[in-house]
């Protein structure tokens, strides 16, 4: 291959290479950010609901409502979930949905491990196996992203 052929091939010019890298970084931040924020949102909603339920036993209906709306992690969780949704829209605009959507299975992995860390929930052996299978599938899926036309 002549030097001319190399410079005419956009795949090997340094400038294009750099841009391709930037684009890849941005969808990865958007997709994994969206999944992580959705999981954090779920955990915060859980924290909000359980702390509100704990306090509500001691107070009347008005206090109960205000606890749910203003003093718990519930609104924060919903806000985090909302920001995650915006990031998801960004990710979907740049990659195939047949690739991106199965990645969201990581949500269950993060929520399971978060539940164990923050709420002392137990993870059964069967669930650990499921988590390992999902992680394996996501790793395989990642390898298939290069097949897509951007």
């Amino acid at each position, binding site marked *: 291959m002549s030097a001319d052929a190399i410079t005419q091939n956009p795949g090997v010019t340094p400038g294009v290479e750099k841009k391709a890298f930037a684009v890849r970084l941005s969808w990865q931040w958007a997709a994994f950010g969206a999944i992580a924020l959705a999981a954090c949102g779920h955990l915060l909603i859980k924290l909000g609901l359980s702390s509100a339920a704990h306090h509500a036993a001691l107070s009347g209906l008005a206090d109960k409502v205000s606890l749910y709306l203003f003093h718990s992690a519930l609104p924060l969780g919903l806000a985090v979930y909302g920001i995650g949704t915006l990031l998801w829209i960004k990710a979907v605009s740049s990659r195939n949905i*047949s690739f991106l959507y199965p990645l969201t299975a990581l949500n269950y992995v993060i929520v399971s491990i978060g539940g164990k860390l923050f709420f002392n929930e137990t993870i059964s052996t069967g669930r650990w*196996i499921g988590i390992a*299978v*999902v992680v394996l599938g996501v790793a395989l899926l990642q390898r298939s992203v290069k097949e897509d036309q951007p």
Partner: protein
Amino acid sequence: MTPTAALWISIVLGACAQVFLKRGVSPEGGTPPSGLALLRSRWVLAWGASFVIATGLWLVGLSRMEISYAFPLLSMGYPIVAVLSMLFLKERVTPARWIAILIITAGVAIIWRTA
């Protein structure tokens, strides 16, 4: 509507929602909308509506169903989205991607089956 029907319609509608969103943010020809213009896209609105209806049907089905039966059904969303993306978005789902999708489907079913 039986609880089983409600759950399945919820799963399929949830999968359709993702395909609607993709069509909305990556339209065939024409510039993709961004920012508030997204709210004027009919596909994006269809995504929002499908999501809300799917969530409602999910809660209806779940309230009258064994959790160990209902939650593993969530894993069916991944192959359904792949099939819909081939049919309506002309996405190319390679054998390698199918294998990855089916492994993820199995993993999510195991997570919920043994929860």
